[in-house]
């Protein structure tokens, strides 16, 4: 096999769709990586402004209210209200493409009681707009932190309980392809 054919084969095999294991998107901005790091312990840590008390999400470099620069991550009330939900039947990312082949992927937007609106993975399908939910953070199969919404009655006080939710939607596992590269 000459170099050209070798390169062509390597390019072909590096297509995400041919890989044995596909994982959720790992790339984050610097602020996003800091959010991941801050959220490894606890239920939900959001940026709090020490100057004006504003709580914000998505993470940013400055306070969106007073433009102050002294933002710290603090454990935040995880309760909120479901604003809208939808089930995805199409994705641009191989991990979700494989998951969607089995069942549509539910997402939602939630207004947290502390203020910000968060887009989240949804675990429960029979929720209605306006229903109360809890939102917690957890690392996924890419070891990046994502937010997950569960019905408000769900007990998520311990790491084991939260882990169980993640295992339930298999967010802790890569999506495998038999005979993949």
């Amino acid at each position: 096999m000459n170099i050209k054919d070798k390169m062509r084969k390597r390019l072909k095999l590096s297509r995400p769709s041919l890989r044995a294991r596909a994982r959720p998107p790992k790339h984050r901005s610097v602020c996003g990586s800091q959010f991941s790091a801050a959220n490894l312990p606890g239920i939900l840590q959001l940026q709090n402004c020490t100057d004006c008390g504003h709580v914000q999400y998505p993470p940013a470099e400055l306070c969106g209210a007073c433009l102050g620069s002294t933002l710290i991550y603090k454990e935040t009330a995880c309760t909120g209200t479901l604003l809208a939900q939808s089930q995805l039947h199409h994705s641009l990312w191989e991990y979700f493409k494989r998951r969607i082949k089995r069942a549509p992927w539910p997402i939602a937007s939630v207004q947290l009681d502390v203020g910000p609106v968060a887009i989240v993975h949804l675990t429960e399908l029979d929720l209605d707009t306006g229903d109360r939910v809890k939102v917690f953070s957890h690392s996924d199969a890419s070891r990046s932190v994502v937010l997950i919404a569960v019905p408000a009655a769900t007990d998520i006080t311990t790491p084991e309980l939260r882990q169980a939710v993640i295992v339930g939607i298999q967010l802790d596992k890569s999506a495998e392809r038999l005979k993949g590269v």
Partner: protein
Amino acid sequence: MKDYNGVVLTTPISMGYARQSPHGAAWFVGSVLREMISAAGLTKKDINGFSVSSFSLGIDSAVALTQHFGLCVRWLEQANVGGVSGILALRRAARAVQCGDADIVACIGGDGAAHRSFEHTAAHFSNWSTDAAFPYGAAGPNGPFSLITAHYMERYQAQREDFARICLDQRYNANHFPGALLGHKKLSLSDYLNARPIAGPLHLFDCVMPCAGGEGFLVMSEERARQLKLPAVKILAADECHNAHADDPVQDRGGWTQYIEGLYNRAAVGPEDVDFLQTYDDYPVISMLQMEDLGFCGKGEAPEFVGQTDMRFDGSGPGLNKLPHNTSGGQLSCGQAGAAAGFLGVTESLRQLTGQSQQNQVSNARLGLVSGYGMVNYDRGICTAAAMLQGVDR
């Protein structure tokens, strides 16, 4: 706000639309420029202002393109604001011409569509999108817009049949516009309703097809356009507002509400006077928000409004209220060529108002309203702009 007297828009160019293309953004921007100066009977030396919008220039910027194209300009602008690029470009270029900073400004939007490039753009669209939207299903813009659509349908009792009204009439318009990528295909209500699901309430024909393409126009003084014998269009009024209503939990209105009254006052016309409307139709619900916020109907009344309104360019539909809407088929039928999609409504308006449209000409089109919307930084589009345009008597 000062008027735009003495300045005109001319020489609309739309070219190179393709589902996939080996060419980069510079090819599309440069090709539009070539077509434009040839159509206007100018040379490169006559262009001394240059405004570029593109998502896929990579590490190049507008100034790099001046060297690529051998342009020497005294006024340069790069407005990478997606769906409002065209209107922002025309507003800024018009002021430059009015104030004498430039004589002729070429405003161009162009983007390529390399294999898997849309995936890359969606994955790295903005920091907030990368951190807080894309990881949730990686649906690209379909994710946030499925939530916006689901919320609108629930809050205002809109049905899929209402969205179909917009998509079907636009496809009819595209069937009469040779440049539309999907213009060769007919679309029926049952095709629309039975299309495969994409995200929540969004199905295939609610979503635009990403593609490559270039759009552009020239901005110059009215006098210069007359000397060059170019059919031209005046700006009666134009405005923009970004990140308005930031506290709405889910978007169901845009920044148009902040300025539309003043815009109509300055133009001395109302929504009932326009001969056509061009909205930014990345999803049909967004066209509905524009019809409401631009004053064609009240908030939440768009489903009823589109039910009664014939939006075909020739008024051949059954609706009693006639409002030609997205007369070239919009992005839903032409394809969404990156930042060029923000120019689509402007170039189509220019063709209509100067009588340069071919089969899809709106008869006696004198006055047109064009509106832009764009940039889903996180959970909603945060840019809005609108312009009232009028054909110049020849």
